[in-house]
């Protein structure tokens, strides 16, 4: 029994830390509230869609910034999409970098865009790894017979 309690405590603490450190904001909490017995994998499903979306968009952004002549409108369109989906799942830091990135696009600032791309890739890889850890910990609790309560 102690094992489950321990795991659950670690999960709660880890979850809280993600909010504390600004990786996640209230929107993630909103999504957690939408999960129940009838939809037990809702959060993982949405976040997985976000990962797929982000991977694709970061690819597009890298390609677009590698062109000899940069299409800032196209660039901005991709950043707008990433900004939207990161906001929808509560990936706060990614969302914030996207806002700066859009400004760089508007200003047609190549240096700024390159920097923002590095930043967004960094923030994305951080939140991705943190969320994967969170989901792994949830699985451990469930496997040990505990419940993941919201």
């Amino acid at each position: 029994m102690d094992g489950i309690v321990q795991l659950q405590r670690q999960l709660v603490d880890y979850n809280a830390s993600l909010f504390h450190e600004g990786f996640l904001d209230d929107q993630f909490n909103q999504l957690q509230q939408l999960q129940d017995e009838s939809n037990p994998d809702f959060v993982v499903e949405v976040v997985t869609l976000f990962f797929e979306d982000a991977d694709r968009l970061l690819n597009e952004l890298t390609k677009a910034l590698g062109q000899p002549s940069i299409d800032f409108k196209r660039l901005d369109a991709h950043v707008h999409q990433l900004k939207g989906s990161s906001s929808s799942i509560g990936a706060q830091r990614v969302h914030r970098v996207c806002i700066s990135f859009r400004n760089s696009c508007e200003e047609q600032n190549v240096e700024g865009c390159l920097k923002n791309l590095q930043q967004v890739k960094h923030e994305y890889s951080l939140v991705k790894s943190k969320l994967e850890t969170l989901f792994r910990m949830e699985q451990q609790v469930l496997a040990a017979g505990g419940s993941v309560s919201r």
Partner: protein
Amino acid sequence: MDSNSVVSWPRLPENMDSFGLTQEHSEEVHVLAVDDSLVDRKVIERLLKILACKVTAVDSGLRALQLLGLLDEQKMPSETIVGLKVDLIITDYCMPEMTGYDLLKKIKESSTFKETPVVIMSSENVMPRIDRCLEEGAEDFIVKPVKLSDVKRLKDYMTTREVKGESQDREGNNYKRKLIDTSDVSPSSPPCISSSTLPSSPSLVDSTIRRLKMTSTE
């Protein structure tokens, strides 16, 4: 347009709670959700299903029009899916090819769906944009990211509308009230007043009249 025309809303039973969970006898509320983002479609679908709505989610304005039988190539009434009932359309504003605003216009121009409430969602909290959508007949405007409380509000006023008929009480519509209180009315385009957009709040009536007077003296 006849202001006393019958609006067919789903008949909701008296014993239905605010979550619509006790709907056994009446039809489910059917919502058409339009958003090019897969993540957002997934979220809005879940939010609406929690409120016991039937949801059809599409990824573009064109697909929405196709479903509603409103594409130019579908001008014949027989093209519309027989018995298609859509009680609410909720659409993203920023979409490639056709924006939510363009979709709103097409819906309001149609004879079949102009009475259907249309709600716009956008990540950008831009007053002129919101104003423009509301002027065009949008029922409400939700700033993304969409939360359960946003969607609950929609369900609330749909029920209200059904019960109260044409003399709608818009008091429950917090966002719109805020807009009425703070918006600075300027004459943008010729006013397009139809009974479906008749305002009930005095301040909006005044501003509309002001707009009418300004354009008539030009």
